[in-house]
């Protein structure tokens, strides 16, 4: 009896140790190709000649043949990714060359999955998208439409919804090679760049999940960060790239328009500073610290009308003119009034511009849908209806600025 019990226990132990360790389909981290970033560019008209037919025969579809893409993937080299600030240390050498923590591979393809499979054909270890953090698409690709890319990313269970999708003004592939001294892994630099700009109030939260949600919403158009490379290795967040029907409809002209967009939507914290002239005082710079906005919708003559009421708290940053004085309630009031006018103007221009492109990045349609149900049900059946209505809706903008601090100096 006692012997039998011991045998049963031993048998249980062996079975458990075989089953519960999970070694059955384990894959060590250094045998994986972890893709950190992807860049997608146009391949050009002659690309079909040099492609390797991995996944298909010669294609008949002129649409697929004309729109080939060049996918540049940044793969993490296991063991060379620096874990802390101190490990390794030779950031200059690691930028390019043998010690680089990442490996950049370029492939062609007709679709994203086609390119991904071509990539797998070229690299040894199985590719994984679980650590994919940033996807950069060139402006030309975005103009053609992101339907294929969105479909692939939505289907793939490995892709995080918190991945960032960026639109590059020129070559997207260049972003896979930027290696600024602050961070040794280029993609992670790109990522921290965007995440920090959100924390500083320089950009709204607009990762894949938000992009997709906005794209699906009937009364809102999607937008993405529009980025550019400066001095070969700096990344500039240039503005908002806004979409219509999954296609790039346009981009904002100046980075300051991100700030007024965030003001109109009341996204905190405030992070932009405006430089503008004030009568009798000269040029001043005022930094916004807190934004609040209230959007309400009225139906006037069968057309929606939006009232945007923006309240900003700000502080005085600098005064350019030596002679003028800022030393009274009255002078602050003049500056506030001038800034209110300035911001209202820029918001107005941005709305006009997006109305021309029929892309409602402010999501006024969502307010109509939420608060004017019967009007919405009557006149809007699909997204296109709202986009057309947005193009000729009227908006009243009211801005109230409150300068709370002037700094350490009186005059």
């Amino acid at each position, binding site marked *: 009896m006692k012997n039998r019990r011991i045998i049963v226990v031993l048998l249980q132990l062996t079975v458990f140790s075989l089953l519960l360790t999970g070694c*059955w*389909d384990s894959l060590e981290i250094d045998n994986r190709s972890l893709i950190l970033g992807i860049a997608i560019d146009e391949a050009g008209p002659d690309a079909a000649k040099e492609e390797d037919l991995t996944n298909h025969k010669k294609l008949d579809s002129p649409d697929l043949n004309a729109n080939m893409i060049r996918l540049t993937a940044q793969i993490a080299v296991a063991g060379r990714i620096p874990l802390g600030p101190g490990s390794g240390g030779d950031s200059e050498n690691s930028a390019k060359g043998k010690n680089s923590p990442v490996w950049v591979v370029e492939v062609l393809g007709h679709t994203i999955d086609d390119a991904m499979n071509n990539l797998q054909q070229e690299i040894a270890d199985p590719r994984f998208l679980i650590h994919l953090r940033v996807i950069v698409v060139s402006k030309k690709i975005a103009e053609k439409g992101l339907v294929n890319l969105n479909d692939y990313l*939505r289907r793939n269970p490995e892709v*995080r*919804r*918190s991945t960032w999708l960026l639109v590059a003004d020129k070559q997207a592939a260049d972003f896979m090679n930027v290696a600024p001294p602050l961070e040794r892994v280029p993609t992670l630099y790109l990522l921290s760049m965007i995440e920090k700009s959100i924390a500083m109030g320089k950009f709204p*939260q607009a990762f894949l*999940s*938000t992009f*997709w*949600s906005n*794209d*699906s*919403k*009937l009364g809102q158009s999607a937008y993405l960060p529009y980025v550019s490379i400066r001095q070969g290795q700096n990344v500039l967040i240039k503005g908002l790239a806004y979409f219509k029907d999954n296609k790039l409809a346009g981009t904002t002209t100046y980075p300051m328009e991100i700030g007024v967009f965030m003001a109109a939507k009341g996204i905190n914290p405030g992070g932009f500073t405006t430089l503008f002239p004030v009568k009798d005082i000269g040029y001043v710079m005022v930094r916004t610290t807190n934004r609040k906005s209230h959007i309400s919708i009225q139906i006037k003559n069968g057309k929606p009308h939006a009232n945007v009421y923006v309240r900003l708290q700000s502080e005085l940053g600098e005064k350019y003119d030596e002679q003028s004085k800022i030393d009274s309630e009255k002078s602050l009031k003049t500056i506030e009034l001038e800034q209110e006018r300035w911001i209202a103007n820029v918001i107005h221009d941005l709305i006009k511009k997006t109305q021309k492109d029929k892309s409602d990045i402010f*999501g006024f349609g*969502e*307010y109509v*849908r*939420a*608060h004017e*149900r019967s009007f*919405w*049900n009557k006149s809007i059946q699909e997204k296109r209806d709202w986009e057309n209505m947005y193009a000729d809706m009227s908006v009243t903008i009211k801005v109230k600025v409150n300068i709370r601090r002037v700094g350490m100096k009186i005059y």
Partner: protein
Amino acid sequence: MRDTPIEVTIIVLLVLTALSTRRNIVKFSYIHLFYLPFLLGPALGIILTSLQNADVLNLEPVIGNHHTNIMGGLLDIAALFQSSFIITLIIPFMMKPEKAMKASIWAMIIAGMLYLLIVISTIATFGPQETIRLIWPTLENARTASIPGGFLERLDVIFLIVWLISVFTTMFTTYYLTCYTTQELFHFKDHGLFSTFLLPFVFVFAICPHDIFQFFQIAQWTGRIGFFLTLCYPILLWVIAVIRKKRERTCEE
């Protein structure tokens, strides 16, 4: 997990459930009591953290925009509460059976609130149009939520654990209900025999669906049919009882 054949996963889960159902009803209740906090706690945690991406505008208007199939949805949700019938099995073993009604109402409220919170947080995060596109909206919601400070960048691991526990408890409940009632039906002494006997049948049913779309359809219809049965059969019994009582009374007179 991708290399693991789906049959193996199903068998492991089924054998575990079948072995658990051989216990008596007191142990059955205690197993549920043990898992309850592990279900409610993390689920509420996920809902709360996912609210950071929420937008109230997505929930408005509350009655929805265009015409929607509310009755069908109501039926499917009501069908989810079917396994609460297990309470009728436990009542005879209760120390204070008169409190059973109160307990089951509370159980309904807690489960219902959890369902409602999950739906609210998911729709508030994604908006109704995006939610329609997703096969597993709650899982996606957990994938999007992250605990601030880079501690946990995606909560789907926690969600999957919660989901697995809830799958186990649900299977455990329904399996136990089936075994116990079959045993009562055939006047057997022990329901353990049926738990082994049922295993191959349940397994075959489990591997029947070809794909996710077929599976959803089967799940919806079995839910609705089951709901119909659980609703109509007691009503039928009650009607019969009422008629018989009347007749009995007339006989007595």
